[in-house]
């Protein structure tokens, strides 16, 4: 089944430009297409008409790199659940529908151009403590010398599956990055390897998060719903606990 659609797309030349919504029509869109392939069709069309194509972030197009974003019809990564925009398919839309396409909106994630935003704030949070201080010599102990309960390993994996796309921030009414930060903090807190720096890690990452200008968590749970990897709110609770525990005994 092929569809004709009206798109309302945010166009903004660069970070300084004010930007506005611009309307486009696309025709003959197959329902097997991915959302980004639909945008490819639009862009090919624009290039042929000597107009500038819409800039959007994308890379792996298989839902794992976290590069693609887009707030589609009022929802981060669009109306489907458990998928990134690149895995969103046009069968989720109806012929004749109007689709709003906007960049992630948050002060901490400013627009660079059109639908592309600057997510380096998330990177800086990682730099503040998203690691275990171990040299890369390879001369660590044997991997099986560290026993990890399967349930803990699985939980750590669940937390670690965050792709850093920023949908949690984009969808949160407070632009809070807590789900993102909590995922990293939780991953290491479940593992024996992460225990040594556990307290410093959570304090430093939260501090950096606050510096970047993200909002507070008010437990609305929107992030968990829109997260393409289904990262659970449990991890935010865990981070709160970690933080509380760390601050109480902290000498700083």
């Amino acid at each position, binding site marked *: 089944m092929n569809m004709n659609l009206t798109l309302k797309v945010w166009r903004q030349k660069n970070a300084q430009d004010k930007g506005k919504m611009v309307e486009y029509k696309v025709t003959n869109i*197959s329902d*097997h*297409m991915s959302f980004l*392939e639909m945008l*490819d069709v639009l862009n*090919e069309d*624009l*290039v*042929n008409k*000597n107009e*500038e*194509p819409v800039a959007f972030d*994308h*890379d*792996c*197009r*298989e839902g*794992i*790199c976290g590069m693609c974003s887009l707030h589609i019809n009022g929802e981060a990564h669009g109306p489907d659940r458990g*998928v990134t925009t690149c*895995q969103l*398919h046009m*069968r989720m839309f109806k012929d004749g529908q109007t689709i709003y396409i906007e960049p992630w909106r948050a002060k901490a994630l400013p627009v*660079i*151009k059109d639908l592309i935003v*600057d*997510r*380096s704030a*998330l*990177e800086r949070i*990682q*730099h503040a403590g*998203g*690691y*275990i*201080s*171990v*040299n*890369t*010599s*390879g001369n*660590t102990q*044997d*991997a*099986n010398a*560290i*026993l*990890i309960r*399967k349930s803990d*390993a699985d939980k*750590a*994996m669940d937390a*670690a*599956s965050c*792709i*850093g796309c920023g949908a949690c921030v984009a969808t949160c009414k407070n632009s809070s990055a807590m789900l993102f930060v909590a995922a990293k903090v939780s*991953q290491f807190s*479940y*593992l024996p*390897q992460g225990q040594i720096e556990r307290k410093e890690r959570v304090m430093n990452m939260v501090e950096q998060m606050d510096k970047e200008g993200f909002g507070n968590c008010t437990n609305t749970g929107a992030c968990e719903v829109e997260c393409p990897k289904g990262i659970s709110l449990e991890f935010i609770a865990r981070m709160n606990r970690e933080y509380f525990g760390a601050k109480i005994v902290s000498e700083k």
Partner: protein
Amino acid sequence: MSKLDSKIPEGPVAQKWTNYKNHINLVNPANKRNIDIIIVGTGLAGGSAAATLAEQGYNVKTFCYQDSPRRAHSIAAQGGINAAKNYMGDGDSTYRLFYDTVKGGDYRSREANVHRLAEVSANIIDQCVAQGVPLARDYGGLLDNRSFGGTLVSRTFYAKGQTGQQLLLGAYSAMNRQIARGKIQMFNRHEMMDVVIVNGKARGIIARNMITGEIERHSAHAVVIASGGYGNVYYLSTNAMGSNGSAAWKAHKKGAFFANPCFTQIHPTCIPRSGDYQSKLTLMSESLRNDGRIWVPKKIEDAKAIQQGKLKPIQIAEEDRDYYLERRYPSFGNLAPRDISSRAAKERCDAGYGVNATGEAVYLDFATAINRYGKEKALILGIQSPTKEKIIELGEKVIEEKYGNLFQMYEKIVDQNPYKTPMMIYPATHYTMGGLWVDYNLMTTVPGLYCIGEANFSDHGANRLGASALMQGLADGYFVLPYTIGDYLAPDIKTGPIPTNSTEFDEAEKAIKEKLTFFINNKGEHSVDYYHKKLGKIMWDKVGMGRTVKSLEEAIVEIQQVRDEFWKNVKVPGQMNELNPELEKATRVADFMELAELFAKDALNRNESCGGHFREDFQTEDGEALRDDVNYAYVAAWEYTGKPSEAILHKEELKFEELEFKTRSYK
């Protein structure tokens, strides 16, 4: 005389690396801070190298076109990473991993490199676990393994279906630590435009800031290319949209030899194409072949009916199904190596037995596995004479635990439930074994220019085994390059910072600006993608899974034509000094246009079939690859002389001291 010196150390293969490391030049820790290293690409190889080199004390600058190193396409590897740990006690060893890799690569890889890879493989797992990578565990808390194509042991470590992601995040976390220490400077959303050679040595790069369009000069004492493979020369591949061969190709044009470009891996289990708008192909992990059985209908009329949508796969009786891998390769069956499985699928589809509307798909069926697991589970749960439905229900649960996320991804894309109806799969370009020629130190033919990971040619020969790419990337980055680069840098401790105001930098920058200006001003008729698709079609049809002299000769002519057309008529909207995705694509596709020709030329030169390179004129009577070890046991390293068609071939003879040539049989 050949210009190639592979610098393979003397001595028995098992001791080469240890002996070599013992005698290599080192740079004193205090002097390392006087040395700058540029790393282009931040995937598993680049990321791990950046972290390690920075940790040793060098000043590292990393470049990547994505907005974060964490997004490099290593992240997409699903299945796992090999390591000779023998945790399963099934007879694995360094030697066996070495042997499997050389054999899997069809004896076209360098023995010494592969052995080194097998040696350090176990350290990778230790390292990653220490970094907090959540590799899968069993109930006793020990690491779990699964098996992969082309091997008879279980040596693959995994993290759900997201192994590449977890390993990359591990490497990135190691980078984070160094970024926090100020030892790594990240240049994200930056693309390398050229390598700068000063007095015969790689001394820096020209990069484009992709946000502002600014052309920047960066100098260093050594440059490391870790930019991945060039699979996107086919337009459609499992690579990321941005994956490109430009960094390697620019290095090639500056003097680095390009080795074995025709060795390309076509992965057997990808989701088939659904239409012309298709932008990329999605891989389904090879691990699915542990439990899935691959088949097409036995009768051509059944196949036709399926293609027309008149028949459903579940309606075809067991005896009317052709499990062609099990039929042709009884001992490896559905776990035959990738090149062989892919060709077998193509063979069936070319014969008309394909199972979707395009006729380019085969089934990957889990019904048998669901049934088997269901029965096992019923037994475990103590259910007496379970019903058929109960067995299926239990079996599906087991399958869901193992492959749930993959099944979900398939369903999202294809809109069919793979628990109930077999998956459809078809081969797609996945990995390029070829790449920049490097010596044992991983240095290219340009002094000071290194190449690691998929971008180099070294370890996989003509075909890569599953779960070995992650292993190679991390081995190169964590454990090989950081040692070998010191040998080259040792004399550089007194050099001081490399100035960026030299004529070499001036010229390189000027050339790039001219080229970018050309694209902007060309105002042609067609978009970059239009030409890229054309190129991709030539490559897939004529330089794809089955190649002939005729197809390759035609391809070379057609590639040249498309290239001429591209330069004449390409249209790039927008400006140079802004974020301009079309301009980025144009520079990458321009390089693919040249690389493609060398690719075809190399395929034409290699008069044999081996690994991913299958020449239809060199096959046995039953359609198996016919290798020529007398004439072609060499690495074809091409030297750029101004045009791909005039590239000069240099041969590095491959000597096998430990292993002897064997016909690669998986029967």
